[in-house]
């Protein structure tokens, strides 16, 4: 008897099983996009490089080998096998600096996106949930921040706070935050009209619970996509700030800062300039490819027609 009633009733899946199904479905859509899989692989590699930098790097990133200034890469005449990608103007091994630079880029991306995401979610939730004058004031402030070209505002903020990596990250996060606030607000406003929110409210859920437990989980998809895109922009913009002398300060092996130091040698030693930029391009490209795949997999409205 009990057996038949069990088969007739809709299969009740445990939360873990539902999550597993969602992940399978997500992976199905994500892996449809070949570029996204390549991007993910490159990004995973980058993470590994950053984590095991100390093991992988043949040299210390800041040690200056005074007898090996501007040594070309190994395949070029005059190159040396102990400096595979050559050395810079003060004799530091470029490959080792690039490997340690991966730590900087990933760290910057994570910090910037976390600050911007958390700030944007809280602000966007407040605006979308309460509406009215709270919404108007918050969104006008966001408009003002968005009126400035992002790199310029970040530059000026760093000039105020003082050049350096921490301040550069804070500045970039402040500049990116309105995008998250806007997205959250829009998603919250459309979710607010749904019946499940009214149901939760009738059931006696308080504002905080409604905002963070009921509504927020249903607004995450566009935020995840935006977070990925912001991650790559953060890597680019922090490298730009480093290049302009406002980000990480020498002798830090940050890729943008390396480019700034290499500028005067561009016509004499191409490798000093080429490799750090290539590292930036490859990381940003990998993250953007991943972002495209995430968008395809997470956002049904934007799925490729």
């Amino acid at each position, binding site marked *: 008897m009990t057996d038949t009633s069990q088969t007739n009733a809709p299969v009740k899946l445990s939360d873990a099983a539902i999550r597993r199904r969602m992940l399978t479905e997500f992976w199905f859509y994500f892996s449809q996009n070949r*570029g996204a899989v390549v991007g993910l692989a490159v990004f995973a590699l980058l993470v590994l490089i950053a984590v095991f930098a100390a093991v992988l790097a043949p040299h210390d990133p800041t040690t200056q080998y005074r007898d090996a200034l501007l040594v070309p890469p190994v395949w070029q005449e005059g190159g040396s096998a102990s400096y595979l990608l050559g050395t810079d103007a003060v004799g530091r091994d470029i490959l080792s600096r690039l490997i340690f630079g991966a730590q900087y880029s990933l760290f910057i991306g994570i910090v910037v996106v976390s600050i911007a995401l958390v700030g944007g979610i809280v602000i966007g939730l407040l605006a979308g949930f309460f509406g009215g004058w709270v919404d108007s004031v918050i969104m*006008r*402030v966001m*408009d*003002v921040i968005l*009126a*400035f*070209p*992002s*790199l*310029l*505002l970040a*530059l*000026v903020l760093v*000039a*105020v706070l003082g050049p350096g990596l921490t301040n550069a990250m804070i500045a970039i996060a402040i500049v990116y935050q309105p995008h998250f606030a806007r997205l959250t607000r829009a998603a919250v406003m459309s979710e607010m009209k749904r019946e499940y929110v009214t149901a939760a409210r009738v059931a006696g859920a308080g504002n905080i619970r409604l905002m963070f437990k009921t509504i927020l989980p249903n607004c995450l998809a566009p935020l995840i996509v935006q977070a990925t895109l912001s991650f*790559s922009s953060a890597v*680019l913009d922090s*490298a*730009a700030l480093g*290049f*302009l*002398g*406002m980000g990480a300060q020498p002798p830090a092996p940050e890729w*943008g800062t390396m*480019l700034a130091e290499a*500028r005067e040698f*561009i*016509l004499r030693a*191409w490798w000093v*300039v*080429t490799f*750090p*930029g290539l590292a*930036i*391009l490859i990381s*940003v*490209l990998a993250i*953007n*490819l991943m972002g*495209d795949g995430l968008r395809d997999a997470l956002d049904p409205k934007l799925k490729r*027609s």
Partner: protein
Amino acid sequence: MVRFILSKLLYLVPTFLGITVIAFSFVRILPGDPVLLMAGERGVSPERHAELTAQLGYDKPVVMQYFDFLGRLLQGDFGNSLVTKKPVLTEFLTLFPATVELGLCAIIIATLIGVPVGVLAAIRRGSWFDQISMTAALVGFSMPIFWWGLLLIILFSGILGWTPVSGRISLLYFFPNVTGFMLIDSLMSGQKGAFTSALSHLILPSVVLATIPLAVIARQTRSAMLEVMGEDYVRTARAKGMPPYRVIGVHALRNAMIPVITTIGLQIGVLMAGAILTETIFSWPGIGKWMIDSISRRDYPVVQSGLLLIAALVMVVNLLVDLTYGLINPRIRVK
């Protein structure tokens, strides 16, 4: 339409005030005494310090200072540079044409290449052209343009020796500054070789600056075209037996262009950010380089007013984009 314009204009007022508040508070949140900061390392005597404090209005309450600041702005007084002592507005207007010339060239390059590439990629969807051009667009979109610029300098100036490394024109030429646009001025001067020199100085920086907008425009055009090509009216036009070039050129392209025009307009902010980097790499004497130089020279009045002017400019251009959008897309106007 008038109501639409008015409502948009009204919308700008709080944003503009917000911009002035940010630009104003920028100097105020600098740690330390602003007068000492401006005096630099030499310092000032106590009497001179008091005199300067009163003269600059720093002895008044902050709110009063803000309204003074706003009042001066509305009269067109943007303060004077600490380094050159010249009015900031004069400096801005002198350097502005250089940035406009660079930005216009970049956006023309980006549009002339980006739109056709996007259209072709959409028509030949899935072909090798589509795949290659969209991969290239993604690479362009991910490009650190300051590095891209350096690479082009290595190739075209270093190895091939085709283009100069920096500046707007060779020092051999001298002619009156009429329009501020080097291409036009050099042409009007009638000097042999001047125009070629100006053009060869302009080409690399504008290609570098065009890279990201080009990628964005190509991608946006492709997706807008794909969307429009699936619409009923395109199918109807096809079913009527209309030749493909008319279906694409008249029915699809015109509608697909609406979001693309907005995208092109919105690139102005991207261009301003790009100009900072591009002008620094190529020593292009425009607004971007001026801002960077002023930041490193701690010329705060210039940074403050420069930030304000640039933000106001971006805001006005965005308004124009919005209005154009309303003009070509009646659906927006009514809403």
